[in-house]
């Protein structure tokens, strides 16, 4: 499986994501400069955390015009996996790939701490390896992570099983404590917490590992399905 982590001017969790994913999956993980629009060779695309373009104007507002976003849209449309972490989530909402918006924390302060998250939707390419209702520990680090969407959209998200994670307690004033949401097709996830900061014991939690492993397992099932659909053999037992 081939992963791309997009680096925007002002990204700062890009290398963390590359390191974590490579360590967890053993896959090839490329750091891709935001000027690159052709992302076809990649099976999964990660928009990392940070402060793209300084988060001036609004978080993610300027990054969404980068050439790479064309590639991200194409990948999402093709059913590939797209993961936006923190600033990456903000970019995905700004670009309309996910609904809603992320506003300044209710406390008007940055928050860096380990947050407890409820896995609300364990049946997605990103969460399959978590147990339903499981509470996991993943660090947050954001000043603008208050998820907002109009009530009708929120209802739609909940009913469609598109709320992936919820904070176990209110950390930033997010509507319905939402920490991560999926697109209708389920192949695009945005979340404020940082799974790449929870992959080694010394980090205090390894609960982020299964997110990346889930993505890999999904890709494996898909490639098996693709191979069998095209009449190929082998690999069958993997799914």
């Amino acid at each position: 499986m081939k992963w791309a982590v997009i680096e925007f001017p002002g990204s700062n969790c890009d290398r963390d994501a590359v390191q974590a994913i490579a360590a967890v999956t053993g896959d090839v993980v490329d750091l891709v400069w935001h000027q690159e629009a052709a992302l076809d060779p990649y099976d999964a695309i990660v928009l990392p955390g940070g402060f793209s373009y300084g988060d001036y104007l609004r978080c993610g507002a300027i990054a969404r015009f980068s050439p790479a976003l064309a590639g991200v849209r194409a990948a999402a449309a093709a059913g590939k996996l797209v993961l936006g972490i923190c600033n990456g989530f903000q970019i995905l909402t700004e670009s309309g790939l996910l609904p809603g918006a992320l506003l300044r924390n209710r406390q008007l302060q940055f928050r860096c701490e380990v947050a407890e998250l409820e896995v609300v939707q364990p049946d997605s390419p990103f969460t399959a390896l978590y147990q339903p209702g499981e509470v996991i520990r993943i660090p947050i680090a954001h000043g603008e992570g208050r998820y907002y969407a109009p009530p009708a959209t929120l209802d739609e998200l909940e009913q469609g099983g598109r709320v992936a994670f919820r904070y176990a307690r209110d950390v930033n004033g997010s509507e319905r404590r939402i920490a991560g949401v999926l697109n209708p097709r389920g192949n695009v996830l945005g979340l404020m917490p940082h799974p790449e900061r929870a992959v080694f014991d010394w980090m205090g939690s390894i609960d982020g590992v299964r997110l990346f492993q889930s993505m890999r397992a999904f890709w494996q099932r898909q490639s098996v399905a693709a191979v069998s659909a095209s009449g190929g053999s082998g690999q069958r037992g993997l799914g």
Partner: protein
Amino acid sequence: MQTNHGAPVTAQGPTPEEVQARRLYRELGLTDDEYDRVVAALGRLPNFLEAGLFGVLWSEHCSYKSSRVHLATFPTRGPQVLQGPGENAGVVDVGGGWAVAFKIESHNHPSAVEPYQGAATGVGGILRDVFTMGARPIALLNSLRFGDLSDEHTRYLFAQVVAGIGGYGNCIGVPTVGGETVFDPVYTRNPLVNAMCVGVLRADRIVRGVAAGTGNPVFVMGARTGRDGIHGATFASAQDPQAKERSAVQVGDPFFGKLLLEATLELLAEGRVVGVQDMGAAGLTSSAAEMASRAGGGMELFLERVPVREAGMTPYEIMLSESQERMLVVVERGGEAAARAVARKWGLDLAEIGRVTDDGCLRLWFHGEQVADVPVRALVDEAPRYQRPQQPPVQPPGAGVPLPPPEADLGEALLNLLSHPNLADKRWVYRQYDWSVRAATYVGPGADAAVVRLPDGSRGVAMSADGNGRYTYLNPRRGGAIAVAEAARNVVCAGGKPLALTNCLNFGNPEKPAVMYQLAEAIAGMSEACLALATPVVSGNVSLYNESGGMDIYPTPVVGMVGVVEDWAHVTPNAFRQAGSAVLLVGPEDPALDGSLYWQLRAGRAAGDAPSLDLTMERRVQDLVRSWIVEGRVRAAHDVSEGGLAVALAEMCIPMGMGVRAQVAAAPVADGVARAGWLFGEGQSRILVEVEQAAAAELLAAAAAAGVPARVLGSTGGDRLWLGDSTQAWLDIPLPRLADTWRKALPQRMRREEGEADAVS
């Protein structure tokens, strides 16, 4: 046009004769004496611009004219030192082919005027000092001093400074992993904001701020030059920051800082860069003069080529602007194209503004006209150095202060201390800092020292920032020594081996002999401790004129200690882990209350002498505990510092909710004052360790053999803090009460400043 005999002419502005006759040089920061020295050095009258160059470079901030003779006495050598003071940052070898570059710097005056931007630009500046050495910043620390939190303006300053530090560090993506936050009324009008940065590089790839190689091109890279911050350097040395020209506020741009960081490191990796320097205080003037001075050469600049943000800027303004996020870069002739490509990728302006020369002069041109021509040596090396008069106090300032009778309930006394903002949980501060970005923070804030992994994960860097103005006020020499000893002790407790330090000397007005005495003594004490602990000084910063309304702050030297963690097994927590462990106190027992926070709070002023310190003993204690940690015999370690033994034990209990029963005095003590001394005295060189019960006897024997006093205080377990002597309890508090008091103290005081109080968890 240049004339050989007179000063170069400037298009507008006063003539050299007018500068002299109207004493305009005074506005530029030169005294009459200094002006005469300039005239002598040049052999002619300086024009307005030239006088301005001397004014800023000879300011206290740039020239260290009051402190330099004393700073020269710091021990700066050691086998681990790759780069000592004099460069943008010091560099130390941490083994495995790795080195760390680090430095601390003050931004006190800007923060007093505009706390958010002052603190943010302080962080930006110290980051640039580190990455110009070719090091990638891996950690930030900060040392803060404010007045009393009951004062509304103090709360505003505190909240804004913390937000500003986070605002810059979080955005640029360097974790803020530690620091200290201290409150005392002496800092009310003059808060201290010191920022420290640690970066990592390969030991053989140090870059220095030299402008070498005659003919090599000189570039400015980064932001455009505006009129902001003109006179920042002289501003720092002015008497009343509030009254000073207010437009001197600079706005930091961490996004641009990040681009500059990445571009600089990429450029340095290309290998065609001769030298880089941040344009900090005094902007282009100091960066150009200092880079030329280090190379022993000169530089020629064409000022109309400097990209400007505002129209009509004069050479004077261009030279003195302190616009943020700019670098001066000297590239090998032929390396220009590579440099341009890097700048283009990161969207930065890169303008060739001059070249390196070999005639030892800083020569400035503006639209074809030479506007300044001054010898670099005169600007930098021959800046004045003052042996300012010193005056010891007639009587030590804390002498003769009575100690009011202690509280009837010593448990209440402890809770009272734990809720003092100096000792209370600092989570309110550091939860606003991204301390885990870069995914390399092995131990974050809340520990005795932070530990950050090096890129290959082979080893860690331990770091701590410490200082105590009250001690230094009571006894400048010992206070200086304690700052070094405590910082090293914190590194040892966390599992590191102290290597070297950086320091920031925050003092009052050096023109007062009493303040000069404090400065000289503190430096002497620090030096003694550096020698005793084999931790030389590799970088630092001096901030003087910290006074307001004629009142000086406590003399406050802050030490940033850096050590190496050679094995992950050495990393040691500062909280009790297991029930049934033995708790040992290692180090001399001293029940005196001298210099303690307890006495200050009871008496309403700093009292007594500084706490006791014996540097030979300090070294033995640190070496012993470190050897135990290396042998894997220590479950937890925490040093006894402000608040004394009782507070240190409480801090070890709270995080994991693990109780302890400890005899803080071995023999019965009846007297209340004496008990308070055992509980809250701040005598130095003491470390509490949690060890396996069965190992205690052997460890005590080892301590005796090493000439270190040590005693088993008691054992862990239960959910209460029980402190007493061999016969009875002096206090016995349930841990939840202790934890609650400690955790809620800061958030409760700050609640009003928050839009919505968080649930305190």
